[in-house]
């Protein structure tokens, strides 16, 4: 694989997504590709996979795989993306692995043995008839990997394959990668969490935000010689602790009490108390109902079982009404919610209007709105983007904006679902600092998270949810009423009060 001064600009964009990359990778090398968000890592992988048609943008320099352009080597290159939902094609697991083999015209007699072999290599635990919709995120990601491995690629490209997964699921995917990749396969991996990825690679390439390759070499040398500079740039350099931000004051009054709060079949009955001036981290595997709990605490979902009681300190005169029945402006002044997918929350056409929306809706004066918005733009490094469309922001910028919009109405309680997911180290630290300041100013914070470092740095208490018993149907990402034809779920498990640590 050889790149000479490679660059790519998507049609209709002024800035180059990636530029000036000179890189040579030999057969069998395993490369970790790093760089701050927006450096063009995903674009580079797409180019290598031959997924950038000539008419979809402008190219500069050259890119070759074994001397040929990527468009001609597509059947020898496999790529796994971040989101399992949008890369599985078929309804049954085995059919999905067979999909690529059918496309390549593999004789029918060879297909099923190769499917079974690929499923075995990634440690897929079910029969190939298992519906893809009934798999957890980690299982889906291993299935996607099997679908690529069945094609026996020479070059395997992995674009943050574990970013959406809980730690246990991510470990299994990494184990599957290390087991499944043989010595002849070249591997290029994009991954934010460097320490987890290091056992899989023997070379590290860091792209520079301004274009080109910044550092290139064996992992030890790269991190010994350039660790400080890389860390300052937002790269997760292994072994570098981030300072913890523990609460300076003891927790204050109780703002919100959950009494056997649940939402069968996704969330078993849970007891908890949310206190002012404290940060609570909600942990647990994928499918344990963490996101559902966040929606319930955010007053966005009617509890299926149990009660959610707001204290007068949070709700004033409304304390007798459960939060899901508050009017929306009242809710937004009291409880801010940050969703897992920032784009769900964007309503307006510019970053400025997005931040101004909450204060305007809750009746602030225009001068106060402007003051508040300017302050948030400064604080979250969004001031240059005030006129930009929220949908055009990078992942890190969109996350900072979604947190800022929740803070715009100065709610006493902030509920966040995976606030640090997919963030580079710089944004991560800014978020932790911001949350710590809020907490020390007497706000309450509830964060649903898989991020152990985030918990270590910030959480005063943790609550670990267990996965409800398997009903054969994967818990949906978002709560929905069970459909009429779905097999009826098992009764909710005997309520186990989730324990505090």
């Amino acid at each position: 694989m050889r790149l000479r001064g490679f660059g790519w600009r998507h049609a209709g964009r002024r800035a180059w997504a990636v530029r000036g990359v000179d890189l040579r990778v030999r057969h069998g090398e395993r490369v970790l590709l790093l760089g701050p968000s927006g450096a063009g890592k995903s674009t580079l992988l797409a180019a290598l996979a031959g997924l950038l048609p000539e008419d979809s943008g402008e190219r500069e320099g050259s890119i070759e795989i074994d001397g040929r352009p990527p468009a001609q080597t597509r059947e020898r290159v496999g790529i796994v993306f971040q989101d399992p939902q949008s890369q599985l094609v078929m309804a049954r697991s085995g059919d999905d692995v067979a999909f690529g083999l059918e496309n390549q015209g593999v004789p029918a007699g060879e297909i099923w043995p190769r499917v079974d072999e690929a499923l075995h290599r990634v440690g897929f635990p079910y029969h190939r008839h298992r519906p893809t919709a009934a798999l957890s995120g980690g299982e889906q990601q291993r299935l996607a990997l099997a679908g690529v491995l069945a094609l026996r690629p020479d070059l395997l490209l992995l674009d943050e394959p574990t970013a959406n997964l809980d730690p246990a699921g991510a470990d299994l995917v990494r184990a599957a990668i290390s087991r499944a990749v043989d010595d002849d396969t070249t591997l290029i991996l994009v991954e934010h969490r460097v320490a987890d990825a290091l056992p899989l690679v023997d070379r590290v390439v860091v792209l520079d935000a301004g274009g080109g390759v910044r550092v290139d070499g064996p992992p030890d040398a790269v991190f010994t010689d350039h660790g400080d500079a890389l860390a300052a740039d937002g790269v997760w350099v292994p072994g570098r602790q981030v300072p913890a931000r523990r609460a300076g004051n003891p927790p204050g009054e109780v703002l919100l009490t959950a009494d056997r709060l649940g939402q069968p079949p996704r969330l078993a009955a849970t007891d908890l108390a949310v206190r002012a001036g404290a940060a609570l981290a909600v942990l647990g595997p994928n499918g344990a109902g963490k996101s559902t709990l966040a929606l319930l605490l955010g007053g966005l979902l009617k509890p299926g079982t149990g009660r959610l009681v707001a204290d007068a300190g949070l709700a004033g005169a409304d304390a007798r009404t459960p939060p899901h029945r508050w009017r929306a402006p009242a809710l937004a002044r009291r409880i801010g919610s940050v969703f897992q997918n920032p784009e769900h929350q964007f309503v307006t056409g510019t970053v400025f209007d997005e931040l101004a929306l909450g204060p305007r809706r809750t009746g602030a004066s225009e001068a106060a709105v402007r003051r508040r918005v300017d302050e948030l733009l400064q604080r979250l490094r969004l001031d240059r983007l005030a006129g930009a469309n929220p949908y055009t922001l990078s992942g890190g910028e969109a996350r900072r904006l979604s947190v800022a919009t929740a803070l715009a109405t100065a709610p006493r309680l902030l509920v966040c679902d995976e606030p640090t997911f997919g963030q580079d180290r710089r944004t991560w630290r800014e978020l932790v600092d911001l949350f710590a300041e809020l907490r020390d100013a007497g706000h309450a914070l509830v964060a649903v998270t898989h991020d152990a470092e985030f918990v270590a740095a910030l959480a005063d208490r943790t609550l670990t949810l267990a996965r409800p018993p398997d009903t054969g149907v994967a818990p949906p990402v978002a709560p929905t009423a069970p459909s009429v034809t779905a097999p009826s779920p098992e009764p909710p498990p005997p309520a186990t009060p989730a324990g505090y640590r």
Partner: protein
Amino acid sequence: MIGLEPVARPDAPLARRNPVAKLAAALLFAVPLLATLDPVAPAIAITIELAVLPLFGVRYRVLFRRVWPLLAAAVGVLVTLVLFAADRSGRVLLDAGPVVVTSTVLLTALGLVLRLFAVALPGVIVFATTDPTDLADALVQNARAPARFAIGALAAFRLLPLLGQEWQMIVMARRARAVEAGRNPVAKLRLFVSTAFTLLVGAIRRGTRLAVAMDARGFDAGVPRTVARRQHFGAADWLLVVAATVVASAALGVSVALGTFRPLVG
């Protein structure tokens, strides 16, 4: 919401038939019924449809759950005709001021309602007994449909249930941002439109990602595709298609013989 996934016992004799054969049989059975406005032919068709239901392995209760929205449509037809029918000849059954219900009005309404059911039921039965993957396979293998269309539609179909979840997510996310219509109908409509727009943007993004993932695995790359799951179209499948045609013609024949046949045209 009407479910679309199969609910039949898969080993029932007619449920096992080739999906393309079932689809063709349903069309050949239903389309001729459109030719007449009388109640007799559709009534015979419905009787036959209900009689063969056990052969498809579908329980009556399940069928009822799927077709109840049609009942609402039937009531709509009935009310509309009673109020607005032009032909008010025949015996007067009810005279309530401006609304005169006559035997002709009721007969026309009955014909239309029965036709609605007779034409819709075969389609409902086919989709209740057919796995979408099998249908796509059979369309490609037995009906020579382009794989780009059949497999592409199948993949898109798999994403449909996500849209409902996505909608709820967007509504909740907006409530969290203090965006809620309250009781004002104009605000409600505007919020609905803007929520639908957000949903559409998200669906297009997800669809694009899926298309890229399919491309990356060589879909529609110009290589002739092989098939992992073979669909057979045998004598029994031909028999089903022929039988459906014959039975539909017979139902029309009875209607003609009884003199009730009222052609749609002429």
